[in-house]
């Protein structure tokens, strides 16, 4: 192993330490919040100034929210997939924390992509919803986010939940290329890619610049919220550890031989209180 290898490993190990991660988060979060607020303000100002499209009219402004949220809905699942690999392959201590914390944020972005798309579709397509390939595959993505959140809540032990959630996330990642290429593979109402495409964007600068600023702003928003949610998850696990420690302390304090009776008495008391 070379000196560089050791340094890289040391750095990864440092980052894997939850206490050091919390310290890093405390330093970085205020800056991220400030950058996100400024970018969102600039993006909203540019969106307000953007001209109406000759076909879409003012509904083009919906695109400045819809497109960043649609991109992030897939990006967040990508982040969760990488974190799932970290859980299953490298057993990184923060990997499942990252995956679990990202799910509600990804669900919120996907919800916004669906609803803003629907609000754009009504005046432009004449319908709020159409069961075409792009819309349906994004709806499936949203349902998978909800399924993952339910799975995390259903299994009490975080390490057991992490493995099941990681497998489900990696299976769900198969939906990402389907979403991306659905507009090319099938005949859909949804227009094909107009920014990330071979030959460059087809959008005019008047629309492209506000769109990119809003996309960067929402990306910073995701990073900020994700780090804050990861910090909360680490603290939640500390609470759980201390509660288990407290239970052990109570058990150890019971007179020997009488523990089972004491536990039964405590359970009976709780059920009595619950019934009352």
């Amino acid at each position, binding site marked *: 192993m070379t000196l560089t290898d050791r340094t890289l490993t040391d750095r990864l190990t440092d980052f894997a330490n939850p206490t050091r991660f919390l310290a890093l988060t405390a330093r970085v979060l205020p800056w991220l919040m400030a950058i996100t607020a400024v970018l969102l303000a600039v993006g909203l100002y540019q969106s307000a100034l953007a001209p109406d499209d000759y076909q879409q009219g003012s509904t083009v402004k919906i695109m400045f929210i819809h497109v960043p949220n649609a991109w992030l809905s897939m990006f967040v699942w990508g982040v969760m997939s990488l974190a799932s690999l970290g859980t299953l392959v490298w057993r990184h201590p923060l990997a499942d924390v990252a995956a679990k914390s990202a799910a509600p944020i990804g669900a919120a972005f996907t919800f916004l992509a669906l609803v803003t798309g629907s609000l754009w579709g009504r005046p432009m397509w004449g319908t709020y919803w159409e069961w075409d390939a792009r819309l349906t595959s994004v709806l499936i993505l949203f349902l998978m986010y909800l399924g993952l959140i339910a799975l995390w809540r259903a299994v009490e032990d975080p390490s057991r939940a992490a493995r099941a959630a990681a497998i489900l996330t990696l299976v769900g990642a198969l939906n990402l290329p389907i979403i991306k290429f659905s507009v090319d593979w099938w005949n859909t109402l949804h227009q094909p890619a107009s920014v990330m495409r071979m030959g460059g964007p087809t959008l005019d600068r008047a629309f492209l610049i506000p769109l990119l600023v809003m996309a960067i702003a929402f990306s910073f928003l995701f990073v900020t919220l994700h780090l804050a949610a990861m910090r909360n998850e680490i603290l939640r696990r*500390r609470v759980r550890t201390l509660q288990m420690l407290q239970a052990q302390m109570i058990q150890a304090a019971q007179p020997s031989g009488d523990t089972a009776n004491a536990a039964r008495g405590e359970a009976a008391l709780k059920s009595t209180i619950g019934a009352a």
Partner: protein
Amino acid sequence: MALFLDLGPYTSFVLTSYLLAAAVVAILIGWIALDYRRQTRRLRELEERGVVRRSGRSATEIR
């Protein structure tokens, strides 16, 4: 602001989209901020009852 309000026949669709996005982002921020306060409060309560980490360091210590 007048630019936002002068959206022609699609005002309701555009405004609803922006207001909904603002509401969802505000809910996310509020939920995460409240969750942080709840977890730190629970940790402090546990420490006040004498339950401490094996390392002896405070569980709320994040710096």
